[in-house]
C-alpha cells in the first residue's frame, strides 16, 4: 500500500512546518532542566580532580550537618556483584575503589536548593592516594604503562598484549602480499585524531524519584528512555518495569545521550531522602569532563595503487582509547575504513585500549570519521603523487551494489556511484581558487541501523490520528513520522499528531541513534498505519456486508474495490472514527520489530579553504555535502543533518580537542577553550540530496544523520594540503601546528 515512486507521493518530499515548531520558538518546549515538582531537591556531584587515584576515605559529615542537606550517596549505596557492561556503567556512574579519570563521580548530595547542593558538595572531603596515570592511546599500550584495570580484556585479545588492551579486532580478505606486489606505489603513514565531544548545547539533566517500594519515576533528556530504564535499573539492582522514564525534549545528543551518567544518582539520592524528587543538572564543565567524548585514535594505514589509480591492497591498524572502560569504536572504524572502495586484498587490525579518561560515548558515526581521516588522507596523498584526479580515483574504485563490501558481507543497493556523479557535476568543483587556497575532497560511509522498534497508532473519533513513538525527536522526526503516517493513510499531514511516549506506553525502543529513527520508527509507523487501514476496511466491509478484501483504501477513505464489490459511497476515515464505538470498538494499529533492510549511506564532501601562511589559520571558504538519502521524507531536515554533520566535522578537523596536562587533568572544560565552530567561522553549507531509494523501507529511506561527519576531517586536511603543500596527519589542524609545519617545510 505504501507508495514506491516519487510521482505518487503527496506528502513525502514536501517541507511542512514541524509539529513542535511553535513550542520550540516560543520557549514553551520543556527540556531536561525545565522540570519542577513539589518537594524538589537538587543534586550535586563530587568529582575526582585526579586522573587516577585510590579513594582512601570519603567524609560527608560536614555536608550533612548543613541545614537543608537531605542525603549523600557514595558507591556504598549501590548493589555489588555486577559484571560486564553493567559493572562498567555502575563504575562510571560512581567510582568504587579508585577514581579512573579527572571528573569521575565519587559522591553525590541532595539539598533543598541548587546553590546549597553545590556548597555541600564542596564540604564532602575525599582523601585520595594518587596513582600513576596515562591518557594517550599509544602510551597506554606501551609495556611500562600503568595498568588501569586488571582482567578487563575480553576473549578476543591474544596473549602478550598489555592489560590495557581490552578488545582486539581483526578481519580482512584476499592476499595482501600479492595485492601490494601488484601496486605501482605502496605508501604507509600514521594518522592521529584527538578526542572530540558531542557538544550538545543542553547539559545532561534529569529528575528522579524513587520510594522505598522500589517504584520510580524519571524525567530525563535522552536519546533513548528505554536505555535509561534498563541501565538505571541494572546499576541500582531494580526491576526494569518498576521505573517509568519520561523523555523531555532533548537539546542535542549526537550519540552522547544514549547512555547514563548521573541519572542513577538522582534515584539513589531520592530513595535515601525519603522519596523526594531529586533534580540533577550538569554544568558544562561536568559535561566536558565526565560525559561523552569520542575516542582518540592512532592509526597506521598502508595502500597499494597502480599508476592509473586502481587500489590493489590496503591495510589498517587502528588503536583507540575510549577512556577507562572498553568501548572505543575501533571496530566500527575498521568496518568503515575502506567501505567506499572495492579492494582485492584488505587487512584490518584494531586495539581497544583503556586510558585515564572519561568513558567514551557514541558520537555520530562512531569511528567512521577517524577512519575516513586516515584512509581518505592517504588516498589523497597518493593521487597527488601520481597526478590523478582524486574524484576520478574514487569513481574508479567505488564500492558497488550487490558486491562484496570491505568488511565482508555483500552490499545491498547503494548510491555511491550516483553520489560521486552528483559531486562531479556540482559547480563548486569548478569555482576558481586564489593564492593560499586549496580544495579537498573526501568520501564517507555509515551503516545505519534498525534496532528494537515499537510504534502504536490510534484513530480518533473525528478521523484524526495519534501516533505514539519511542524515539525522541532530536531534529524534526515528529514531522517525518507524521508525514509518513499521513502519506500511508492518505489523510492531511495536519490530521496526524505524533507523541513521544514514556516507557510504560510502548514496547521497548532503542534510542534515536544509528540514524535509525526515520528508517526504523518510520517503517514501523507505516506498518502500523497499514494495520489500521486493514481494520478500517473491515469496518466498512461489515457495514456494506461485503468481504474485507473487496474493500480498498484510497484518499483517506474505504472504497469498494471494484464494480463487482458493489456500489457504495466511500466511507471516510472521519466517518469510520465517528462510528467505531458501535462497529467493534477502538481502532488502532501497532508494529513491533527489529526492522531489516537498513540501507547504507555514502557521502562525498568538497571543501575550499584559505590558509593564512603567516598565522596558520584556516578559513572555510566554500563547502559542499553530497549524500545519498534513499529518499528524503522532509528534505529541509535532511539538509539540516548534512549541514550539522559537516560543521561538527569541520570543528573536529580544525579546533576541537581534549587537552590534558601532565597530571591527566582536562585543560579545556569550557566552551571558551573547547572550540566548537561559531557562526562567523563558516560559510553557507551547500547540499545535494542524492536519492537512490532503499528497497528495505516502504518510502526508500536511508538514515542520513551520521555519514556526514566522516568526510569533513579528511576533506579539510586534503584542502589544507592543497593550499599549503603541507600534509597534516594529526588532527586538529590548529594554527600552532599548521604554522610550525609550514615553517618546517620551508626550512626543509
Amino acid at each position, binding site marked *: 500500500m505504501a507508495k514506491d515512486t516519487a510521482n505518487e507521493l503527496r506528502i513525502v518530499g514536501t*517541507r511542512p*512546518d*514541524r509539529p*513542535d*515548531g*511553535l*513550542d*520550540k*520558538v*516560543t*520557549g*514553551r*518546549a*520543556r*527540556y531536561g*532542566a*525545565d522540570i*519542577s515538582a513539589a518537594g524538589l531537591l537538587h543534586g550535586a556531584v563530587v568529582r575526582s580532580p585526579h586522573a587516577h587515584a585510590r579513594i582512601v576515605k570519603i567524609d560527608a559529615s560536614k555536608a550533612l550537618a548543613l541545614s537543608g542537606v537531605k542525603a549523600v550517596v557514595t558507591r556504598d549505596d549501590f548493589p555489588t556483584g555486577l559484571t560486564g557492561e553493567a559493572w562498567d556503567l555502575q563504575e562510571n556512574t560512581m567510582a568504587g575503589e579508585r577514581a579512573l579519570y579527572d571528573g569521575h563521580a565519587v559522591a553525590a548530595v541532595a539539598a533543598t*536548593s*541548587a*546553590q546549597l547542593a553545590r556548597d555541600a558538595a564542596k564540604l564532602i572531603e575525599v582523601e585520595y592516594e594518587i596513582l600513576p596515570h596515562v591518557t594517550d592511546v599509544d602510551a597506554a599500550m606501551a609495556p611500562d604503562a600503568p595498568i588501569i584495570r586488571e582482567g578487563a580484556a575480553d576473549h578476543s585479545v591474544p596473549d602478550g598484549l598489555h592489560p590495557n588492551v581490552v578488545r582486539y579486532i581483526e578481519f580482512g580478505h584476499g592476499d595482501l602480499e600479492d595485492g601490494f606486489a601488484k601496486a605501482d606505489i605502496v605508501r604507509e603513514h600514521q594518522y592521529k585524531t584527538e578526542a572530540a565531544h*558531542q*557538544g*550538545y*548545547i*543542553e*547539559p545532561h539533566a534529569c529528575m528522579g524519584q524513587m520510594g522505598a517500594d522500589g517504584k520510580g519515576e524519571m524525567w530525563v533528556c535522552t536519546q533513548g528512555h528505554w536505555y535509561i530504564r534498563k541501565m538505571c535499573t541494572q546499576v541500582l539492582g531494580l526491576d526494569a518495569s518498576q521505573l517509568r522514564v519520561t523523555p523531555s*525534549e*532533548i*537539546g*542535542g*545528543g*549526537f550519540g552522547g545521550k544514549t547512555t547514563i551518567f548521573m541519572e542513577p544518582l538522582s534515584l539513589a539520592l531520592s530513595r535515601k531522602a525519603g522519596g523526594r524528587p531529586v533534580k540533577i*543538572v550538569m*554544568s*558544562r564543565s561536568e559535561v566536558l569532563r565526565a560525559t561523552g567524548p569520542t575516542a582518540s585514535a592512532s592509526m597506521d594505514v598502508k595502500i597499494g595503487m597502480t599508476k592509473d589509480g586502481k587500489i590493489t591492497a590496503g591495510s589498517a591498524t587502528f588503536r583507540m582509547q575510549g577512556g577507562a572502560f572498553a568501548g572505543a569504536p575501533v571496530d566500527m572504524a575498521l568496518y568503515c575504513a575502506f567501505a567506499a572502495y572495492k579492494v582485492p586484498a584488505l587487512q584490518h587490525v584494531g586495539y581497544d585500549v583503556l586510558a585515564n579518561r572519561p568513558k567514551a560515548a557514541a558520537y555520530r558515526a562512531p569511528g567512521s570519521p577517524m577512519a575516513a581521516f586516515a584512509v581518505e588522507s592517504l588516498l589523497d596523498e597518493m593521487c597527488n603523487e601520481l597526478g590523478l584526479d582524486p574524484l576520478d580515483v574514487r569513481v574508479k574504485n567505488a564500492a558497488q551494489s550487490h558486491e562484496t563490501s570491505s568488511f565482508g558481507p555483500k552490499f545491498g543497493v547503494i548510491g555511491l556511484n550516483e553520489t560521486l556523479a552528483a559531486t562531479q557535476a556540482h559547480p563548486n568543483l569548478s569555482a576558481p581558487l586564489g593564492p593560499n587556497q586549496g580544495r579537498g575532497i573526501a568520501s564517507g560511509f555509515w551503516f545505519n541501523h534498525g534496532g528494537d522498534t515499537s510504534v502504536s497508532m490510534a484513530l480518533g473519533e473525528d478521523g484524526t490520528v495519534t501516533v505514539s513513538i519511542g524515539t525522541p525527536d*532530536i*531534529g*524534526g522526526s515528529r514531522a517525518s513520522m507524521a508525514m509518513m503516517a499521513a502519506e500511508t493513510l492518505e489523510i492531511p499531514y495536519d490530521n496526524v499528531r505524533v507523541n513521544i511516549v514514556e516507557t510504560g506506553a510502548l514496547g521497548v525502543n532503542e534510542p534515536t541513534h544509528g540514524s535509525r529513527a526515520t528508517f526504523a520508527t518510520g517503517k514501523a509507523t507505516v506498518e502500523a498505519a497499514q494495520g489500521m487501514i486493514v481494520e478500517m476496511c473491515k469496518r466498512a466491509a461489515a457495514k456494506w456486508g461485503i468481504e474485507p478484501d473487496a474493500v480498498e483504501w484510497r484518499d483517506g477513505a474505504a472504497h469498494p474495490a471494484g464494480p463487482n464489490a458493489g456500489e457504495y459511497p466511500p466511507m471516510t476515515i472521519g466517518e469510520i472514527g465517528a462510528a467505531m464505538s458501535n462497529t467493534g470498538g477502538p481502532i488502532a494499529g501497532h508494529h513491533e520489530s527489529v526492522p531489516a533492510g537498513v540501507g547504507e549511506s555514502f557521502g562525498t564532501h568538497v571543501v575550499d579553504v584559505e590558509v593564512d601562511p603567516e598565522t596558520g589559520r584556516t578559513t572555510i571558504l566554500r563547502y559542499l555535502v553530497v549524500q545519498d538519502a534513499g529518499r528524503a521524507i*522532509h528534505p*529541509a*531536515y535532511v*539538509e*539540516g543533518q548534512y*549541514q*550539522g*554533520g*559537516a*560543521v*561538527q566535522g569541520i570543528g573536529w578537523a580544525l579546533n576541537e580537542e581534549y587537552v590534558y596536562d601532565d597530571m591527566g587533568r582536562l585543560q579545556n572544560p*569550557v*566552551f*571558551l577553550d573547547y572550540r*566548537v565552530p*561559531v*557562526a*562567523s567561522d*563558516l560559510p*553557507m*553549507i551547500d547540499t545535494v540530496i542524492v536519492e537512490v531509494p532503499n528497497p528495505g523501507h516502504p518510502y526508500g529511506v536511508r538514515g542520513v544523520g551520521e555519514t556526514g561527519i566522516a568526510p569533513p576531517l579528511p576533506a579539510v586536511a586534503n584542502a589544507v594540503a592543497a593550499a599549503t603543500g603541507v600534509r597534516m596527519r594529526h588532527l586538529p589542524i590548529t594554527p600552532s601546528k599548521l604554522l610550525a609545519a609550514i615553517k618546517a617545510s620551508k626550512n626543509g
Partner: protein
Amino acid sequence: MSKIHITTKVNGEEVEFLADPRDTLLDCLRDQLELTGTKEGCSTGDCGACSVTVDGTLVCSCLMLGVEAQDKQIETIEGMAQDGELHPLQRKFIEHAALQCGFCTPGILVAAKALLEKNPDPNETEVRYWLAGNLCRCTGYDKIIRAVMDAAAEMRGAA
C-alpha cells in the same frame, strides 16, 4: 543566607521575587519566575542560550546577578510573540527549518531580534558575527542565517 526582594519588569509585566545574592538572573528567571524558555548551556557566557535583553541591551542572563534586575525592563523569549502572534523571526525559523533540537533557539531568536532592532538590513557577515556568541551544534548555522535574513527582509517590507 538572606535573600533580597527584587521588583522588576519581565516582558512588560511587573514581577517580584526573592533572590539569593549569588543567584544569576538566569537562575531567577527559570527557578523563581518559572520562565524556563531561557536556557542554560554553559554558565560562562560562551553559548548564548540564556540571552535576554535588559533595558534593551542584549546580555547573557548567566552573567548578571538576579539582584541587579531591580527596576529593570527584561525581555525574554516568552515575550517575543505578541498576543499570540509570532514574531516574524519565530515564523521564519519554523519555515526555514532553522532549528533541530531547538535548545539554542530561544537565545538565538532573542539575539536576532536585538540585531534587527539595531540594524534592519544586516548582511550575512553581520548576522554571523552578531550571532557568534550563540552556539548551535545541530544546524551548522546555515538555515539560521537564512531565516534571520529572510525575517529581516520581510520586516523591511522587502520580501
